[in-house]
């Protein structure tokens, strides 16, 4: 079992980006649950007994938005403590403050960051949680 490695759930509707993120996270010794939609993510969370150590969340998902997803996440006591990092290419102040108010740890603009940097940010979230 790979149970000692922290697990990151990545929710990103853009297939190629998801592929890049997943690859990089695995290279950094993290387990990855890759989800291409909000529905898939919720289904996955429902299936697992142990919640992931952190969630990497895009804002615009095919079937939902970051806000809707966060609200769902906050409704279930088992999921409320999962640290969420929002990484989106659309970041107006309203969205950012709404997401932070819902408990997101940070809201970063995708195109402005190196993948390495984002990976170490999510990595540090999985550690602080422990």
């Amino acid at each position, binding site marked *: 079992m790979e149970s000692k490695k922290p697990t990151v759930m990545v929710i990103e509707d853009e297939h190629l980006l998801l592929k*890049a993120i997943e690859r990089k996270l695995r*290279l950094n010794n993290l387990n990855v649950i890759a989800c291409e939609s909000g529905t898939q993510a919720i289904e996955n969370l429902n299936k697992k007994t142990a919640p992931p150590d952190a969630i990497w969340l895009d804002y615009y998902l095919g079937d939902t938005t970051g806000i809707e997803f966060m609200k769902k996440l906050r409704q279930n006591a088992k999921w409320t403590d999962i640290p969420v990092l929002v990484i989106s*290419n659309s970041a107006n*102040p309203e969205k950012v403050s709404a997401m932070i108010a819902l408990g997101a740890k940070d809201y970063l*603009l995708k195109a402005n960051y190196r*993948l390495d940097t984002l990976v170490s940010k999510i990595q540090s979230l999985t550690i602080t949680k422990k």
Partner: protein
Amino acid sequence: MIFSVGDGLVATDRDGKILLMNPAAEKMLLQNAQEVIGEDYIETVPAADKDGQIIPSEKRPLLAVLKQGKSFTNHSANYYVRKNGSKFPTAITTSPIKYQNSIIGAIITFRDITHEKEVDRMKTEFISLASHQLRTPLSAIRWFVEILQNGDAGKLNKQQMELLGDIYQSTKRMIQLVNDLLNISRMETGRIIIDPKPTHLGQLLEEVLKELKPKINSKKQRLIISYHPDLSKINIDPNLIRAVYLNLLLNAIKFTPEYGEITVIISRKGNDIVSQITDSGWGIPKNEQRKIFQKFYRGSNIIKKVFEGTGLGLYLVKSIIEASKGKIWFESGENKGTTFWFSLPVSGILPKKGDVSISP
């Protein structure tokens, strides 16, 4: 004439009582022109602010116009309330009617701007959506290049690394272009939030420099900073002015060769605080100097030396300074260097509501 114009028109006497209402106004407000004559305009036609709250009568411009004799135009999203209680967004101009130097009444003209507002909203939404759409494939290119550069997919030879470096640079430039265009469209549409906070410009400068230190060090440039520690705080939007320092300093670093010198001085001059950014760089050719604040302008002398840059930075800087009630000017000599100065009023600026802020 008054009866055939398409805009709403109402005339009042000097007490604000309605003398006349044209058919266009009748139609928009659902009022009866005959019945409202002699009625108080402010009471008959309530106005609401951006959030739909009824504006108290003492804050309605009509009173000030009747008292001071200056006309008043609202460009903000004010609403008029129709007789049936419904609201519509409207652009209103209130002007005094003067006779032999005394104010004898006022003319209020207005039109329904529901359609304009809708178009404006669609435009903003389109810009935001388009930039989001462009950033997605750009992020993918950037990240996959990084994966290759890191050797995550196998070791690359020197030539391959060099070519990847070129792709990376172009991608980052494209990302910057999208960011700059987005910021510019935000400034141009006037939808930018201006959120002034008491700011110590020296401290703001230090924050920006901290970010830029690696770039300055890698070019082995000398940095001289001077500002009075007791510089008074001024009420400006730190986010916007940060973008000004960032752009001007990035230019100074980019357009100054290795071992060059960059000087930043902040000082108070009368009612302004003036920031000066001097470099010992390649300068701007004399015959191009009138063009430097134009969109997409890049100096002909540096275009082959410096590959980064969008030609949008100074345009953005100028828009921000003007929105902050300041001024910007410069002096430059080819192969001598360039100095930019910008001033900001010590009195600070007023906040402005909007729905977007500047992105890095």
